[in-house]
């Protein structure tokens, strides 16, 4: 009898305790306060020795004289610069394969092919990126829809910020097609789509007239393009050559699309048209192109952000993970500043403007009351190459700390001799199996 009582007690209490303990393992703090030497809000002036108050992951207050509640968890970011995390408005990295073989596949979604374990995300978080729109590549006409993710999480669901964002249109001709064929293909697709819709509406109207039930659904493969026509989805149109920009404008105007242009380096030559049409723009990671002056044979440096900035075009920067400087968003901004761009505008082009472009500026892009607390703690000025990201906070929670970044340590420190031998042994094993 007694043993039964004990067993019963243990079988209830122990699990409860365990669950409670597990629950406490990752506490989500309700109130957090950050005290920082400098806060770059992006929304307004920089704040020296300020405080950011966060409640339930949302910024409640920002300023110098903010009172910190007694039950807030205080993060002392002395000698640190706190600013909004970087946002990338367009990337095709982090996917297993960026392009589908077939040119017209608007119904595909990058949500299905994002690889959370890709080093791209790990590096992005390490470098202070808190949100990126992952879209298909440049080698399909209608590549599919994009997904906004944060570079933190073991599964795509855990990384998810916003699904079904943006539809990628590429004006680069697919393999073995000419530009004529490519454009015609697009026009035919749109014509077919419009015809489909008309016929659908006709059938619907007929059914209503005849008082018959109508349960035919729109073909889900056509839905994204219909949403594009209804301006529910934004088109991200990639222009491969300067001559593609007028085509992109033509498409945008013909179908009254909500569109942004993704430019290749050469497209700066169409700056006047871009400025005139006031279309939002995403720059290629390559910010400097060289051109040969035909007369003098001299090589001239063209700085793309400056050319566009002078014409009054607002843009967002992209990064390229395989290159030295360009992999860092702050380096792109620094390049523009080097050649004369205003510092604040440059910083906005890696925070607020891309957030606006991808429709997440209610949560990302600046440190303002009402936005989510997606901030980074820097060891110095963002445009100084010696500055590192010390911590990254996403939705009020610290998700990255440099001090605990084991992989980074390994990449920067000399390997211990035994480890070096082990690595070489592993390497040869790997090679043998290939």
């Amino acid at each position: 009898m007694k043993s039964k009582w004990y067993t019963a007690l243990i079988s209830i209490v122990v699990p409860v305790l365990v669950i409670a303990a597990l629950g406490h393992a990752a506490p989500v703090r309700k109130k957090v306060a950050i005290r920082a030497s400098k806060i770059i809000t992006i929304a307004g002036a920089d704040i020296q020795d300020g405080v950011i108050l966060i409640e339930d992951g949302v910024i409640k207050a920002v300023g110098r004289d903010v009172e910190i509640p007694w039950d807030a968890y205080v993060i002392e970011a002395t000698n640190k610069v706190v600013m909004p995390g970087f946002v990338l408005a367009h990337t095709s990295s982090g996917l297993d394969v960026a392009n589908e073989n077939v040119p017209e596949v608007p119904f595909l979604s990058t949500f299905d092919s994002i690889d959370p374990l890709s080093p791209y995300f790990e590096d992005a978080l390490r470098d202070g990126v808190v949100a990126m729109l992952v879209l298909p590549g440049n080698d399909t006409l209608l590549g599919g829809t994009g997904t906004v993710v944060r570079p933190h999480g073991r599964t795509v669901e855990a990384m998810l910020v916003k699904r079904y964002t943006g539809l990628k249109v590429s004006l680069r001709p697919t393999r073995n097609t000419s530009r004529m064929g490519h454009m015609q293909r697009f026009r035919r697709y749109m014509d077919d789509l419009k015809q489909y819709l008309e016929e659908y509406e006709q059938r619907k109207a007929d059914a209503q007239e005849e008082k018959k039930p109508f349960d035919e659904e729109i073909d889900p493969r056509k839905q994204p393009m219909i949403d594009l026509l209804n301006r529910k989805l934004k088109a991200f149109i990639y222009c491969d050559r300067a001559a593609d920009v007028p085509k992109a404008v033509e498409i945008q105007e013909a179908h009254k699309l909500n569109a942004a242009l993704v430019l290749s380096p050469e497209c700066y030559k169409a700056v006047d048209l871009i400025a005139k049409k006031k279309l939002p723009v995403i720059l290629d990671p390559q910010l400097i192109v060289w051109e040969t002056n035909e007369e003098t044979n001299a090589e001239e440096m063209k700085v793309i952000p400056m050319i566009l900035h002078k014409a009054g075009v607002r843009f967002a920067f992209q990064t390229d993970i395989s290159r030295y400087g360009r992999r860092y968003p702050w380096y792109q901004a620094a390049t523009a500043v080097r050649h004369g761009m205003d510092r604040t505008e440059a910083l906005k082009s890696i925070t607020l403007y891309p957030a606006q472009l991808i429709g997440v500026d209610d949560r990302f892009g600046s440190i303002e009351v009402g936005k989510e607390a997606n901030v980074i703690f820097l060891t110095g000025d963002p445009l100084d190459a010696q500055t590192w990201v010390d911590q990254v906070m996403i939705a009020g929670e610290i998700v990255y700390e440099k001090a605990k970044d084991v992989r980074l340590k390994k990449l920067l420190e000399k390997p211990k001799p035994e480890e070096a031998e082990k690595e070489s042994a592993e390497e040869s094993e790997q090679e043998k199996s290939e």
Partner: protein
Amino acid sequence: MRGYVFLLTLLSLSLTATTALHGQEGIVAIKAGKVLTLSGAPVTNGVVLIENGKIADIGTGIAIPEGASVIDASKSVVMPGLVDASAVPAVRGDLNEQSSEITPSFRMSSAIDPQSKVLKRAVQTGLTTLYISPGRRNLIGGLGVVVKPAGKTAAEMIIKDDAALAIAMGSSSTVGNRTPRYQPPTSFYYRRPTTRMAVAWMLRKSFFDARQYAASHEKEDPDMEILSAALKGEIPIRVTVRRAIDIRTALRIADEYEFPLVMVGCVEGYKVAEEIAEKRAPVVLGPFYYHARDRGRYYEGREVNWNNAGILVKAGVKVALASNAESQSDDLLTVATVAVRHGMPRDEALKAITLTPAEILGVADRVGSLEKGKDADILILSGDPLVPTSRIERVLVNGKTVYQVD
């Protein structure tokens, strides 16, 4: 016969070279906010005096002679022009004579393209001295040359010919040496080496033959002449190696044949830093790849360390940072900036793109630092060179402004 030919070439080259190399006549004075001489402490609010293309004086309180053209850089930083110890080749045609694997008398100087776009761009990113090496497809590729991007003909550009002998170890020289499947071995590419063993063996054999040749020979052989000169230390030997195992092999062979070694590439140098330091072999580092999967395919290893430069320097190795002939790489200032970010000491990084490569190339008597008597190859920047927001405002080569921001 060869000596006679050499002398005649030298004579005709020098005749054409004398006019161009002297640079600007007259006196130029740069009023500098800060001068990073790289040969001592920085000078604040100083003057750099240039006469006939050479540095006449540097310091504070220097009187500027009358008639001197003055450059106002009082808000700027002045430093020596950058030296790229393994530059993108500004040449025409193939980088190797691929009809044979061992071509010691292949001279890159005969392939220089004075009108190359590479050179014109290089100057605008601050490069004033470049070493152009033969390619990596041949085991013994030939002789490299040190040039300056100023001059109409190759002769005017060259400041040191026969500057080093290029050897490529690891798997790069085996590339292409296999016959395509299902095809008869008819092309001259079907040859050794196809494995690392053969690479090491062929190298040893070449040095062995050179030693025999040096001891006694009947007929003069230009290839053997160069190899024996290299073994004697008269021509520096540069070996391109990436993996740690190849670095070790190179060090071993250098010990066996007792020659001083310079290593180029050394992506896995961090794994064997002490051994390299022990051998006192300088290293010319190329761009690293952030992730191994970005690197080439030919069995060149998968490990990376972002602080390769810092680790080598800490172990006592002399390190130069170069673009390593990668046309896709960023400019040298960015390379140095990123190296500092990842752990290379700042002073070492600045030296690694100026004085250290000049020393490795054997032209430190002329370039690499701002000192009296050296060539007036100067960069003027809007701020500290290792900060990405600093811009190159002006570049001088031999005292003449060759690039200026409008």
